[in-house]
């Protein structure tokens, strides 16, 4: 410290507080200003230049050319049908293949295993951790994202100049046909997607018709085996599927999509039927045995009567075409009398 001149005041001692704050304020403005102009207003969704977008767009034309995605952002339909589609969710992949667009899918997530052909496509990563670099390198002309993808990541992809369309997770089965139709509209396959959507609607209505005037609604508990008593709450679309299949979800009152159920509650609620979501028969059997061995489960009607059934976890947990199969199976198991005999 001997290097310091005697009586030296520290650098800040010479600094008058009154001019420090204005300088800092200016500095703040200087850093914020470019922020606002250069990246604050970059549209998250890329609108291709080729799409006609004159200022006074007639209302009719607009509805034909510009649609909004489920985040409410405008998306201009490209002139040509997209050739390289990246799907960021397994249910989107399943819908694309069901429409017959399998050949145009350029990339899928590592969870996209259905239909089996999807497994051979380039992987972009997972649902919450897709790799932006890989997506960009695939040079997609359409990226279909889902609400399950982190929003910030989806926006980041949009800012790279890729056209991103974000779809919401449906609240019930009635949202499935419109979802299919929307994917048809953005991929330029309106007709085929419309037919597919109409087919789904027909099957859903057929179940409704078959169940008209049922005498009882069995209490249903859906169990996601492997993590304790995880089940689908009232906000889940599976809750709606159970309702349409002529049952009542015992966890319907829980205001969540998925929730951990308490053992005491399942004994009190006493479900008539238990569906175990599982990936394989071995999985299902392990889950059924675990349930049977759970303390107090002997008091549960479903366990006593043996009405514990397997449900394909992937089909039931993806808001895609196979959800209608889940509805058919569930309805047939809950009301065998309406669907011709014993399940």
């Amino acid at each position, binding site marked *: *410290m001997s290097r*310091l001149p005697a*009586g*030296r*005041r*520290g*650098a*800040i*001692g010479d600094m008058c507080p009154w001019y420090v704050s204005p300088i800092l304020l200016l*500095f703040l403005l*200087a*850093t*914020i200003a*470019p*922020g*606002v102009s*250069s*990246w*604050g207003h970059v549209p998250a969704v890329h609108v291709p230049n080729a799409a006609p977008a004159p200022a006074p767009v007639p209302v009719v034309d607009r509805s034909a050319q510009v649609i909004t995605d489920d985040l409410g952002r405008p998306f201009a339909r490209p002139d040509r049908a997209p050739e390289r589609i990246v799907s960021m969710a397994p249910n989107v992949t399943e819908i694309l293949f069901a429409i017959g667009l399998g050949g145009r899918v350029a990339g899928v997530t590592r969870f996209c295993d259905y239909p089996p052909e999807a497994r051979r496509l380039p992987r972009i*990563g*997972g649902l*919450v*951790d897709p*790799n*932006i*670099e*890989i997506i*960009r*390198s695939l*040079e997609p002309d359409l990226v279909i994202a889902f609400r399950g993808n*982190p*929003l*910030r*990541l989806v926006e*980041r992809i949009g*800012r*790279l*100049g890729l056209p991103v369309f974000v779809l919401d997770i449906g609240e019930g089965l009635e949202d499935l046909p419109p979802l299919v139709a929307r994917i048809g509209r953005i991929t330029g396959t309106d007709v085929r997607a419309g037919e597919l959507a109409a087919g789904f609607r027909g099957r859903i209505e057929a179940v409704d018709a078959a169940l008209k005037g049922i005498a009882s609604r069995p209490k249903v508990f859906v169990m996601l085996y492997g993590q304790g008593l995880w089940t689908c709450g009232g906000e889940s679309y599976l809750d709606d599927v159970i309702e349409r299949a002529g049952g009542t979800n015992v966890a319907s009152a829980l205001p*969540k*999509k*998925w929730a951990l159920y308490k053992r005491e509650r399942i004994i009190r609620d006493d479900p008539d039927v238990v569906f175990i979501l599982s990936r394989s028969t071995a999985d299902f059997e392990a889950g059924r045995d675990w349930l049977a061995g759970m303390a107090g489960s002997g008091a549960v009607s479903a366990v006593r009567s043996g009405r514990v059934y397997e449900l394909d976890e992937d089909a039931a947990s993806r808001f895609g075409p196979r959800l209608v199969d889940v509805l058919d199976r569930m309805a047939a198991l809950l009301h065998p009398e309406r669907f011709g005999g014993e399940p």
Partner: protein
Amino acid sequence: MSRKTARRIFWAACFLLCLAGFLVSLLSGPVRTTPGDLIRFIGSPDPVRSAIFLDLRLARAVLAFLVGAALALSGAVLQGYFRNPMADPFVVGVSSGASLGAVVATALGFEAAAFGFSGPGLLAFVSGLGIVSLVYALSLRRGGFKVETILLTGIAAGALASALTSFFLFMRSDSYDQAVFWLLGSFQLAEWGQAATIAPWVALCLVASVWLARDMDLLALGDEAAQALGCPVRRVRKAFLAMSALLAALAVAVSGVIGFVGLVVPHWVRILIGPAHRTLFLASALAGGTFLLYCDLLARNLLAAELPIGVITAAVGAPFFLYLLHKKR
């Protein structure tokens, strides 16, 4: 080996490692690229390579470097401030406060981006600074200014913020994956905008801390001694605390909470080139940036899926730190 030589070697190694780190960052990633690709790209840019090299890899490397520099500088300042080798940006509650803000924003769906930050980033920044101001105000209330009081208040406030964070995570299990980003840190979504937002502040704080470094040297003698030697202790303390809080809050706002950098890097530097604060601040910033650059390289290339960077910083930093500590003692 004289201290001077050691210092020269240290600076040269840091610069070389830093340059090499940037180069490797540009060349490595899930999409295979060779040095030839990079040279061809510089010759004739195309949109895909431009997006991969510049918008994704370079922006990410630059942001990682800046955040590393900010955290290490913040840690170096706080260790001097508290005269305590355990101090880091977590100690005054900045990190816990900022992660609370981010998690609350995520849980409430507050997503509006502003000033180059995302919604949660903005709230993280504000609550990180807010908690430090609160800690500071509370410490002042107990008559006079005591370093021990601010340290303990900070730890208590940080614990409270962590508890609230866990509560919000528990209530909104849907937003869990986004919360992991805030709690363990990631540069996956790095953008030029974020780098441009924090760069001027990091530079400003670096310049200011180097300018005030002698006062920090005086503080090491104790507040009374420093005051007697002409250091305006209270103002210097205030400036340093504000700077370290600002740096840590900025870092958390763009990349989530990344531990260990602020704690360990200043120690490395002190062990290698000595405790004088002027060089310590400069060298900590450079070494911290370089360290985080390499950690991010590991985070994105080690496994097929991205690892949270907080996992890497601790896993790589701790053993190296132990080695240096025991070699020198």
